[in-house]
């Protein structure tokens, strides 16, 4: 039946942050429609920020996401510090990078083991893995907890850290306090290396895309907590203040998150695969060795192999955290003085799932006049749809159930954060009186 209409649909995607669904409509061998539905609440945060004092932006925007609050705090702080012309102590910057490593360890370990692995292993969720292989899940949880712990020590608490401010921190840890993290981090580093090898035993669909990659450029370091420039594989190398000259955000009817496109290029990819492809040479020796150990090429165009790249970044985050602690000297002052100055600037950081850009305009009293926040998932959404289109085109002969699962997996390749999730439970209760 060549004209038979097939619909591949998932109303509520599980194992992603936020609220999203997927719809793919096929007519015979033709793909009629591919939609990633994002019901993210309109980004009321941008409106909410107007009229607030500039130093409030890191704490307010951190509430956007329970899984990457540090990304928001850093992007907001960088942006404000640029507007007011604050210079940050290098050790304070190092601490910010350490805090961010904690977020990467937490987020990547959660995604690799608890959210993405079930797709590859044929389990509905990590709960069933826990029943069959509790030791794997216990190790994953320990790894995640070590990331959380870094965030507690540097950020004051693990979720929505309270210690970050425009200008630096409210207080800084002593070297001895950080050194207590070392034994756990050494375990985490070894476990991350094991994770790379384990992830390489998974089966990957034979599927590659011709990606345009975008990531921050952190002036000689693997981009994590920030970067004054951004680069793309299409040849852009520009100051972050020119981000919105290259990236345009469009509203589409089926999603209330804006979708990002590169002008003159179209969809692009941001996230682990982009950072890895654009900055492979800046990875630590341990991370490179882990990648080489499994024969991972320097550019990974199979989106399902993002789990391998994420695992390599786990090695990078653990190794980098250990280096920062080794070289740390507690700064004389946790912060520099911050005085308002009228102006506008962009600031960005590399959230676990990709580049997060903020732009603020403030007046001479420090009041926010305008705010724009471009999260990585909004940027990746057109590319996710392009992946779905490509994947369904190649594998449309699969039975519906399997194709649906594979398409969900294709979305989870991006570790999407359809942010500002509600936390309520959809509860079905059946009881007889």
């Amino acid at each position, binding site marked *: 039946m060549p004209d038979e209409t097939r619909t591949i649909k998932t109303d509520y995607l599980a194992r992603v942050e936020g609220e999203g669904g997927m719809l793919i409509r096929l007519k015979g061998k033709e793909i009629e429609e591919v939609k990633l539905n994002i019901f993210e609440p309109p980004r009321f945060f941008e409106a909410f920020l107007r009229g607030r004092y500039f130093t409030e932006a890191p704490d307010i925007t951190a509430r956007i996401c329970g899984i990457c609050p540090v990304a928001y705090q850093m992007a907001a702080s960088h942006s404000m510090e640029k507007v007011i012309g604050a210079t940050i102590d290098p050790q304070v910057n190092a601490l910010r990078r350490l805090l961010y490593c904690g977020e990467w360890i937490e987020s990547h370990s959660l995604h690799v083991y608890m959210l993405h692995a079930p797709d590859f292993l044929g389990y509905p969720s990590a*709960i069933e893995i826990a029943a069959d292989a509790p030791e794997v899940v216990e190790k994953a949880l320990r790894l995640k907890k070590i990331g959380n712990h870094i965030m507690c020590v540097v950020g004051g608490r693990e979720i929505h850290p309270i210690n970050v401010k425009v200008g630096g921190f409210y207080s800084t840890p002593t070297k001895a306090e950080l050194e207590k993290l070392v034994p756990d981090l050494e375990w985490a580093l070894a476990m991350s290396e094991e994770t790379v090898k384990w992830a390489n035993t998974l089966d990957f669909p034979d599927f590659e895309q011709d990606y345009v990659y975008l990531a921050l450029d952190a002036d000689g370091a693997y981009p994590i907590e920030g970067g004054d420039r951004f680069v793309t594989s299409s040849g852009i190398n520009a100051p972050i203040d020119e981000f919105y000259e290259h990236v345009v955000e469009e509203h589409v009817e089926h999603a209330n998150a804006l979708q990002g496109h590169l002008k003159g290029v179209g969809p692009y990819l941001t996230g682990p695969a982009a950072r890895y492809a654009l900055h492979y040479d800046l990875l630590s020796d341990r991370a490179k060795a882990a990648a080489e150990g499994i024969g991972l090429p320097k550019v990974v165009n199979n989106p399902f192999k993002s789990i391998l790249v994420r695992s390599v970044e786990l090695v990078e985050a653990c190794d980098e955290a250990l280096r920062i602690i080794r070289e740390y000297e507690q700064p004389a002052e946790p912060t520099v003085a911050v005085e308002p100055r009228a102006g506008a600037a962009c600031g960005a950081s590399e959230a676990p799932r990709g580049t997060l850009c903020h732009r603020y305009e403030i007046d001479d009293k420090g009041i926010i006049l305008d705010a724009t926040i471009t999260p990585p998932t909004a940027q990746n959404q057109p590319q996710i749809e392009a992946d779905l289109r490509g994947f369904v085109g190649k594998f449309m002969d699969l039975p519906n159930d399997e194709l649906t699962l594979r398409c969900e997996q294709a979305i989870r390749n991006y570790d999407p954060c359809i942010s500002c999730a509600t936390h309520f439970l*959809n509860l079905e209760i059946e009881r007889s009186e």
Partner: protein
Amino acid sequence: MKILVVGTGNSWRGDDAVGLEAATALRERLPQAVRVLATEAEQSSLMDEWEGCGAVLIVDAVHSSAAPGTIHRVDLNAEVVPHAVLKGSTHHFSLGDTIELARALKRLPATALFFGIEGARYAPGEPLSPAVATSVPAIVEEIAKEVEALLNRD
């Protein structure tokens, strides 16, 4: 007995904040020896929070077909959280997931109770709906009684 009370939710999303509000009220109401945690965290870390506890009592907003403000009580050691709970999750790793994961890993405390308050609206930036706000004192009272009974059992 070490007891942990957890109120969870999202303070920016209408009735989803009810668990947090209940926890805030319970912190005033309960003896100091009882730890009360109000958290908007990604929830798999809750397992670490209740490690070593003899009892955990969790309060969160729920969404079923009951009237707004209805209080559901689930004994987690006696009942499995319905699977639809997990499917409807909007979390990276939700409370329902965490409870079931803890069960699989044998990490649920001997006493583990869940209190769900039926919500009505979850729009960004809204306060609690009237029916849900009205139910807060009742849920606080119910949990306080449970805690008292647990303490008396010691």
